Each structure stands twice: as structure tokens, then as C-alpha cells.
């Protein structure tokens, strides 16, 4: 029986302990991991894929993989680093599948864009930013999401994506330059 872990302890140690419990077959520990991290996973996936449905799928697949991988998990780095790697890989795979689907259908369904006439000013601003970010090339978009919205360092993005720090910085420079140009003069 696992000893109760202090709720105010080091988050990394707490997550490592939860992973040990998941490996022991304690599904409640997986629930605790989900409660702690799913919002972040959901938002990251949504911002990259542009769809809540797809993002919800990513959340479920991510934590099912967490469950499967728990017996082999070794907490050599922060749990979130490992989690981001899973999320990025799943998002990337999903993006590829979507691209293939689009080619097969030969038509792209219209993106849902916030910004109807009754939208508030804040919603319109959010829609402009969303559209600008969504229009970035995939690599640049992913780099910006992990950097600006998830607050990851260049090193942490490199760990999550497997790209070099230099490549990530190059992506960020281009992406931010594009965003500055697109959002300029839009009162954003």
C-alpha cells in the first residue's frame, strides 16, 4: 500500500510517486496525474490542432500511453518533460493524419473562427491572435505554442520535440517576426 504523499511536496517527486503507483495498478493515481496535467495538455493540443475534439482525443491517448509506459518509466527528468514529448508526438501524428485526410478529400472544411458580429472586443482580439498563430507553418506554430503559451524554455522545447535549440530559435525568430507583421495595426 502506497504511503500518502504530501500534497505540498515537490511536484516532480509527487508525479514520480504517482507513476510508481500507476505501474502498481493504481488507476486512481492516473486520475490524479490527469487532474494535475490534463488542462495543460488539452490547451497545448487545441492551440496546435485548432480543434477541441482533436485536443480531447490527444488528452485521452496521452494518458493511456502514460498508463502503458508507467512500468518502464524512470524519473530521470521532470515528468512534464516526458509528458510534453508524448503530447508533441501525438499532436504531430494527428497533424499528419489530418493533412493526409485533407489531401484525400481535396477540400478543406472551413476553420471555426471566432469573430462574429456579436463577439466582444476581447473575443475578436483572441480570434485575430488565434488565426495568426494557426496560419504559421507547423513547426513555427508548435515552437510558439510551447514557448509563449506553455512557457517552456528553448532547452525544454528541444527536449519535447527532439529538435536542436538552434532550430527552435530559428523557428521562433521567424514566427514572432510573422506574428508582428500580421498583428501590426490590428489593435492587438
Amino acid at each position, binding site marked *: 500500500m502506497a504511503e500518502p504523499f504530501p500534497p505540498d511536496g515537490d511536484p516532480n517527486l509527487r508525479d514520480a510517486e504517482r507513476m510508481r503507483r500507476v505501474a502498481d495498478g493504481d*488507476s486512481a493515481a*492516473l*486520475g490524479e496525474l*490527469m*487532474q494535475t496535467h490534463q*488542462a495543460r495538455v*488539452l*490547451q497545448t493540443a*487545441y*492551440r496546435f490542432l485548432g480543434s*477541441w475534439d482533436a*485536443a*480531447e*482525443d490527444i*488528452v*485521452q*491517448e496521452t*494518458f*493511456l500511453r502514460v*498508463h502503458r509506459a508507467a512500468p518502464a518509466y524512470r524519473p530521470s527528468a521532470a515528468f512534464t518533460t516526458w509528458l510534453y514529448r508524448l503530447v508533441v508526438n501525438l499532436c*504531430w501524428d*494527428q*497533424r*499528419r*493524419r489530418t*493533412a*493526409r*485526410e485533407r*489531401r*484525400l478529400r481535396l477540400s478543406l472544411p472551413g476553420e471555426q473562427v471566432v469573430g462574429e458580429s456579436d463577439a466582444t472586443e*476581447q473575443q475578436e*482580439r*483572441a480570434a485575430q*491572435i*488565434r488565426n495568426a*498563430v494557426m496560419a504559421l*507553418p*507547423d*513547426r*513555427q506554430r508548435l515552437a510558439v505554442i510551447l*514557448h*509563449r*503559451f506553455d512557457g517552456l*524554455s*528553448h532547452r525544454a522545447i528541444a527536449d519535447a520535440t527532439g*529538435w*536542436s535549440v538552434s*532550430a*527552435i*530559435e*530559428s*523557428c*521562433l*525568430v*521567424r514566427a*514572432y*517576426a510573422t*506574428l508582428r507583421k500580421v*498583428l501590426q495595426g490590428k489593435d*492587438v
Partner: protein
Amino acid sequence: VDHVNARQVIRHVAGELTPDERARIDAHAAACADCRARIAQQQALHAALAGWTAEPPSVDLTAATLRRLDAGPATPVWRIRLAPAMRVAAAVVVGVGVGYAAGRWARAPGTADRVAPVVEATPPSYGLLSEPGVVGLWVTYDELTDPDEEDAS
């Protein structure tokens, strides 16, 4: 004078510089209007991007995931969502294959007199593999391409 480059500007605004690097850049920016302006632009963009608030729908993903776990090995959700499209694609491939095989049979010696008019009316269609002995639909998938590919490699 070493101006602040774009990468340093991004790191500066994101708070990723070491104290020494930060002090050096701040000292330079204090005396350089161009670099000061570039840092201010990045700060403004950094702040503006916070305006994209993504409010997730209220769904209980924990319960759904644990249910899938209890149900044992499951089909990935994306595969479930793609299933109807895959069925249609499979039907198209089979249909085209059968049509192509029938066309080849019709063109075979001794059969032209029976179905020649039909063969004349249905030349090989776009996307159909027409090499002898090969039957199938010509579908290619380009891998995800990105203008930054060379930068990230």
C-alpha cells in the same frame, strides 16, 4: 558595437537570459535606441499573445479515459473517427481494381469483339495504375512539409 540579435531579444523578453547576459543587453539597450525599440516590440507582442485565451469545454476526460482503461485495449479514437472514411476509400480501391481488371480482360486477345465498344469508351482514368500486372488506385501522400525543414534538421 554588438547589437542585440533577434534570438537574444526573444530570450530577454522570455526571461531566459543569465543575469550577466541580461545586464550586458540592458546596458547596451540603454544606449541604443534601435535595440531598445526591438526589445519593446517583442515585449508588446509577448503581452498581446496572452489575449488568446483558450477556454476548454467542460468535459470529464479523466472519467472517459479511465473507462477506456477499464475496457481493456481499445482502438485509438482517431481510428474510430476515420473508420467511415476508410470504408469509403476501401470501396473505391476495390471498385477501381475490379473495373481495371475487367478492362484488361476485355482487351485480352479474343475478347475485343465482345466488349470493344466499352473499352473504347473508358480510357484509363486519372490516378489508375496502368502498368501490366498492376491493379490499384494511384494515391500518393506527401510527408508533412514545412519551409523551415532545412532549419530544423
